[in-house]
């Protein structure tokens, strides 16, 4: 089964900031696992540098962030910056955001490098499908 092994998608699920509400992050982690992906779960209260360093060491295709405190506009772009300093950019890695995120904020986050934002009510199957559809477009050379 070398074929599937080569294509194994690796995802980092992390929660930047100080809110401890990790239910959503864990549900998404579990759903992506059930979709056949390898999910590195790093837990709550991560700084942007910790997330970027974990993404670097684990060489993930996807970085999925969850914030439920409303600080997403502050925290999410800082994670993209910390990743950028390590050569991890939206060209080679898919950035996904999750949380209570108003539409106008989602637009701002897309400008900042997030290719998609998933809020309450999003279907986990749609998230997995989105990841599977967009990982092949990344520049992993």
């Amino acid at each position, binding site marked *: *089964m*070398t074929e*599937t*092994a*080569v294509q*194994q998608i*690796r995802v980092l699920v992390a929660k930047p900031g100080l809110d401890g509400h990790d239910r959503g992050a864990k549900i998404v*982690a*579990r759903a*992506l*696992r*059930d*979709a*056949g*992906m*390898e*999910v*590195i*779960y*790093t*837990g709550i209260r*991560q700084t942007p*540098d*910790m997330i970027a*360093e*974990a993404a*670097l*060491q*684990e*060489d993930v295709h996807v970085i999925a962030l969850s914030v439920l405190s409303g600080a997403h506009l502050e925290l999410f772009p800082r994670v993209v910056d910390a990743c950028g300093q*390590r*050569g*991890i950019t939206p060209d080679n890695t898919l950035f996904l955001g999750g949380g209570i995120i108003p539409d106008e904020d989602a637009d701002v986050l897309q400008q900042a490098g997030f290719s998609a934002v998933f809020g309450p009510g999003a279907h986990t199957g749609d998230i997995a499908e989105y990841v599977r559809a967009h990982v092949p477009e990344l520049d992993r050379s």
Partner: protein
Amino acid sequence: MTDRAAASTVLDGRLAELEQRMLAGDRRALARVLSWVESGDARGREMLRALYPRSGRARTIGLTGSPGAGKSTVTNELAKAFRLRGQSVGIVAIDPSSPYTMGAILGDRVRMTELYSDPDVFIRSLASRGALGGLSAATQDVIHVLDAYGKDVILIETVGAGQDEVDIAGAAQTTILVNTPNMGDEVQTLKAGIMEIADILAVNKSDLPGANRMVSALKALLSLNPDRGWDPPIVPIIATQGDGIDRLVEACDAHDEELQSSGRL
């Protein structure tokens, strides 16, 4: 000629460049090489061939034990102890893949967050990808790459292991079995397999009731093992508080010295 440029002639331009970057300490290059090696990519095989002569220098320590015994926490504490001595550390943490979807949740990092900001600690999580012995098929190759990269100590944490997941003994020079009190009669079931491969027995959570009884039970079991020139020490620890970690490191050192002096390394 044994310099770096000579070794790289086995690789073509782009791979040679990546190898140079990796050997110069570029962690992103290391991460990418590990991905290729893990997935069986042809570039990974070429890299391994080029890097293999540089490996064989690192100390490898394996940690195994049942799920929830505290392997990740002990790994974290050992990494901190070796870093205090100025040694660089690589960690390979393996978690199980789903037998149905091949997906996995790799959660060992949750217990290691305090190591993230240290550039001399490199943690890689691996999914077992269907392997049955407590490691993944690529674990040994991943260890070789971290070794060639220049890590002084490599800690390998197996999937939660029961009785027969003994592959770690072949992959690591020193194997630590992490036990907990209150395993009760379960300890009897450990007679064969995993109990035989342990070079060091840690009794974690030893502030819980039953710790002394566990130590006695382990001693009794070990006394039945055939003499192999090394008596596995039993070290009570409380990993979440760092208690006993110094003694665990001493036990690792003693086993390392024994391997060197007996020529078994």
